[in-house]
């Protein structure tokens, strides 16, 4: 019962991220929870969503039966296009990414360290099938890297750590972290908490975080 109204849901987190993306932004959304952000772009804002497999102007999911499997996102799910959309090949797509033309990317994570290192592609386990996709390019090239993730693992292990133990995706690349418990900025002084979720106090947050926090 004590879980009611404590912390943010996945949709709450997606809504918070969407609210922080200004009108006119070019945004790349990662696979999973980040995809939800597209559902919460506030009325009146024009945001152009990039998908690294070659489209600027991702629209809403197609109605059942209307799927076109040659029109998909990075997660290989069917999508639609908005008016004004354009297609391009992979080298151009990653020129947009690496060349600093995108304003935001929103990614999931296994771990974020207190200096903004990101680990989100491998757990380092020998049984893992190695797969990296576009994550390493996105974190190097996109101006603002937002991470959206649960604050801890399912068994309570902190995911915001002093130093990542999982293989890195990039060094000092994360700008802001949205978790179910707080919004935290990565600054050159350290991790600065800018908002606490409902029902979460400072001590709870500190207890669930391995890294040092500026509160």
């Amino acid at each position, binding site marked *: 019962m004590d879980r009611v109204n404590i912390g943010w849901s996945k949709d709450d987190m997606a809504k918070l991220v969407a609210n922080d993306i200004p009108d006119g932004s070019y945004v790349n959304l990662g696979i999973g929870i980040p995809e939800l952000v597209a559902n919460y772009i506030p009325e009146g804002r024009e945001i152009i969503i990039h998908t690294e497999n070659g489209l600027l102007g991702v629209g809403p999911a197609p109605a059942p039966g209307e799927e076109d499997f*040659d029109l998909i996102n990075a997660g290989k799910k069917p999508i639609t296009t908005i008016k004004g959309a354009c*297609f391009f090949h992979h080298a151009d797509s990653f020129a947009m990414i690496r060349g600093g033309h995108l304003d935001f990317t929103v990614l999931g994570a296994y771990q974020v360290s207190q200096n903004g290192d990101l680990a989100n592609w491998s757990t380092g386990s020998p049984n893992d099938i190695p*797969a*990296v*996709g576009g*994550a390493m*390019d996105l974190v*190097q090239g996109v101006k603002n890297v937002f991470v959206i993730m649960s604050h801890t693992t399912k068994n309570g292990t902190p995911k915001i750590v002093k130093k990542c133990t999982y*293989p890195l995706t990039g060094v000092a690349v994360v700008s802001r972290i949205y978790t179910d418990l707080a919004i935290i900025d990565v600054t050159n002084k350290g991790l600065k908490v800018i908002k606490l979720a409902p029902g979460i106090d400072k001590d709870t947050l500190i207890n669930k975080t391995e890294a040092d926090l500026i509160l």
Partner: protein
Amino acid sequence: MINKIFLTPQEAVADIFDGATIMIGGFGEAGSPIELIHALIDQGAKDLTIISNNAGSGHVGLAALLEHKRVKKIICSYPKTSFSEVFPELYCSGLIEVELVPQGTLAERIRCGGAGIPAFYTPTSVGTSLAEGKELREIDGELYVLEYALKSDFSLVKAYQGDRYGNLIYYKTARNFGPIMCMAAKVTIVQVNKIVELGEIDPEAVVTPNIFVQRVVEVPNPLHEHVLVSQNKKYPWTE
């Protein structure tokens, strides 16, 4: 007269040799030239090095090529998809060599291969395990990793329309790696949904200029990988 049109996928892939390096287009099933891959399975070439973003799903297309043990090495960015069964099994049994490349680096290595640029520096993967053993260079205070171009003996690509010169247009996000893989091959083999007359594709709208294409074969209604996977089909077809 220039005529790059081949009548069947079988003819178009007939001279692919053992040990060849082959780029295969597609991002998942979008843009994957499934009929050309099936023709390659029938043709029998082996010890292949495949360059492709993914490693196929189910037991058709690229996954079937792997399953028939024709591939000794794959260079890719993301060999794990929801219905990929063949690759994980080969990988865990040590039966396939993998070179894992970040997706943007893979695209740029291919583009450079086609553009006569032997290598380039990129910020991608700096400070990660994928940069280990690679040359690093500081430029304007930032670190970059040296990456080498990729070229192929053959590229297998799916496009939407082509003409007998080899001009191509693509369909939606099935374009993905097609245009750059066309550039990076000694012999580029393209399956198109429709062959059109010269001039039918607006010169302003051509995506792949004909000089990058050697063979065009019409496959009017290409198979859909997700349909075959949902029906649990295996190539070669058993019934």
